[in-house]
């Protein structure tokens, strides 16, 4: 029996979930270093065993934190912030109207799941390819930007103290770096909103395309009759 490398590691998934998690794990390490009287960075760089332990810490804690960050993103950024904007809400309403799903009974996530299952039932396994393409091409980037925003905000608060202690950079420069990182995180937030908006538009048009195709098929059948 030959062993196969599982093909579960997808770049988009790593990008959206794992990398921001790694970033948070590094932030944790920096925070511990700032609070600790010892110099943990020097300790990590002192020999290979410590470096391997540090990499293991980042992999383990980063993977866990990535999933937790993603949940925070879905609950707060997506659920409480992005969905409050008119533009997004109107596209969701249009989507619900198109799919004839009662928005008072199901939330947007449930509606999406229902329509996915309908697609699979109607056009078979190919539907999954379309959906996966949409999620990889649009939604994963929205998740990546949002998770990066969540990871960068605490990072920007910890980084000046860490740089001062470990590299003894001047405090003004440390704060400037923190300003820069905070600005980058704000750009990530806006980018996430735009990507999410794009995803909702694309989802609507994807469903519209399927319904169009279905209608045309019916019309052509009626013409033949």
């Amino acid at each position, binding site marked *: 029996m030959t062993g196969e490398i599982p093909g579960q590691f997808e770049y988009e998934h790593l990008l959206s979930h794992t990398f921001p998690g790694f970033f948070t794990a590094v932030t944790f390490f920096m925070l511990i270093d700032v609070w600790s009287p010892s110099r943990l960075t020097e300790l990590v760089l002192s020999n290979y065993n410590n470096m391997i332990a540090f990499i293991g810490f980042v992999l383990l804690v980063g993977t866990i934190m990535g999933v937790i960050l993603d949940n925070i993103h879905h609950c707060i950024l997506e659920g409480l912030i992005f969905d409050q904007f008119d533009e997004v809400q109107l596209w969701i309403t249009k989507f619900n109207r198109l799919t004839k799903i009662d928005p008072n009974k199901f939330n947007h996530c449930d509606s999406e799941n229902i329509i996915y299952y309908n697609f699979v039932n109607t056009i078979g396994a190919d539907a999954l390819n379309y959906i996966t393409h949409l999620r990889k091409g649009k939604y994963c980037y929205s998740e990546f930007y949002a998770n990066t925003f969540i990871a960068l905000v605490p990072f920007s608060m910890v980084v000046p103290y860490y740089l*001062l202690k470990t590299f003894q950079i001047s405090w003004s420069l440390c704060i400037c770096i923190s300003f820069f990182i905070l600005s980058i995180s704000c750009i990530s937030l806006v980018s996430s909103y735009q990507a999410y908006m794009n995803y909702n538009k694309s989802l609507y048009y994807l469903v519209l395309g399927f319904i169009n195709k279905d209608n045309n098929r019916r019309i052509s059948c009626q013409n033949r009759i």
Partner: protein
Amino acid sequence: MPESHINLKRIFYDFIFTLVLTAILCALLMKAIGLTISDFLFSIVIPASIIIAIIISFFHWLLCNSDIYFWKFAFLLPGDIFYYIIATNNGYSCIYDEEIKIKLPEGSVLIRPKPNHKNSEPALKDVSRYRDDFRRILKGLKCHHAGFLADKLASHISDNCGSSERSLWKNRTGALSIGESESYVLWMHTKINRTLIPIDTKNKFLDLTISHCDWDRGDFCKLDSLYLLISKNVILLLIRLIVLAFFILLILMQNPPLNIVTEPLQVQENWTYGEMHYVPIAIKNIGCDLFSVNVLNQNSSNDSSINATWSNNRWPNRWPRDYLKSGEIGFINLSVQRNCSPGEYRGNLVITANAKRNPLPDLIPYYTIIPPTFYQTYAKTLVEVPFFIRIAPKPNATVHLANGKLKHENFHPSSSRR
């Protein structure tokens, strides 16, 4: 419910919401720069929080005087609900001057019409031709969109919203092409949980869909209202947090942390009885200027023959001895007297200091009017240097041990290793 009452309520809740936020941030900032919160609660935390909350609420109120910004960034109350209406022409011809009947529930009021966004509206007015392409071709109808403005609908309703008149009609002025759909947003304050607005039209080919967002009014308990108050204003909360974070960074920039590094990190020495020994420990100040620098010698036996003295490496008559300027290096001399008994001594050198803080950002040139006020931090423990000293007896000598007994020792090379 008159509109002015809602606005006052909105401003009041906005102020309280902002006050709580700024008070939490002020307390965190005080902790970050090393000031004791309880000492400065009435002198800094509460007055600063109130002043910042008033400034933010006032500027927010000014911003919301504009219809566009009020619609986008107004402070939302638990009973505020947005309704999204989509009207689609499912007929075989264009629809002109159609009436849409919207029945408002009792105790509800439309807050303000949505202004027309020339840039964003066309994106929502897509042509849904999936059902009617073939009909359009057959009938040869070509309708031009005449601009059906969402704000006209809302403003009309708002102007005619009386206490007795609950059914509202809108006369359409534009044309809706075949298969075309348009959207409207109604912003309403209601007392009824999950209100569904009945909406109707006489034209059976005009398909109307109405829905509201998920975070409408929940159960009527205070905790639920508090959750709704926070969750509906998360956008404002986030924007204000980001703006305040930039201000906090500005304040932090002029108040570097109290931070020193020592070399070595710990002391471990093997010395011989009967001689005076000392080891210097360098202290580099990488943070702000330090005042009242103090070194506490906490050793296991409380022996006074082990001393730690502090020197800031400055001219003694010119500067206070307990002052260490930012970027300078000071020294601690850890010394052992001649009469220190043989044995093992463990302990810590605890270095404490305080600093002076200016919690106002150095942006506004207020220093020309009011001199800057500096506040003294509490004595913060900056670093602890552990030491372990072993005093070996002098070879071939009778010595007093740490426990007071006499002991005659023979010389052995291993006992004097360092």
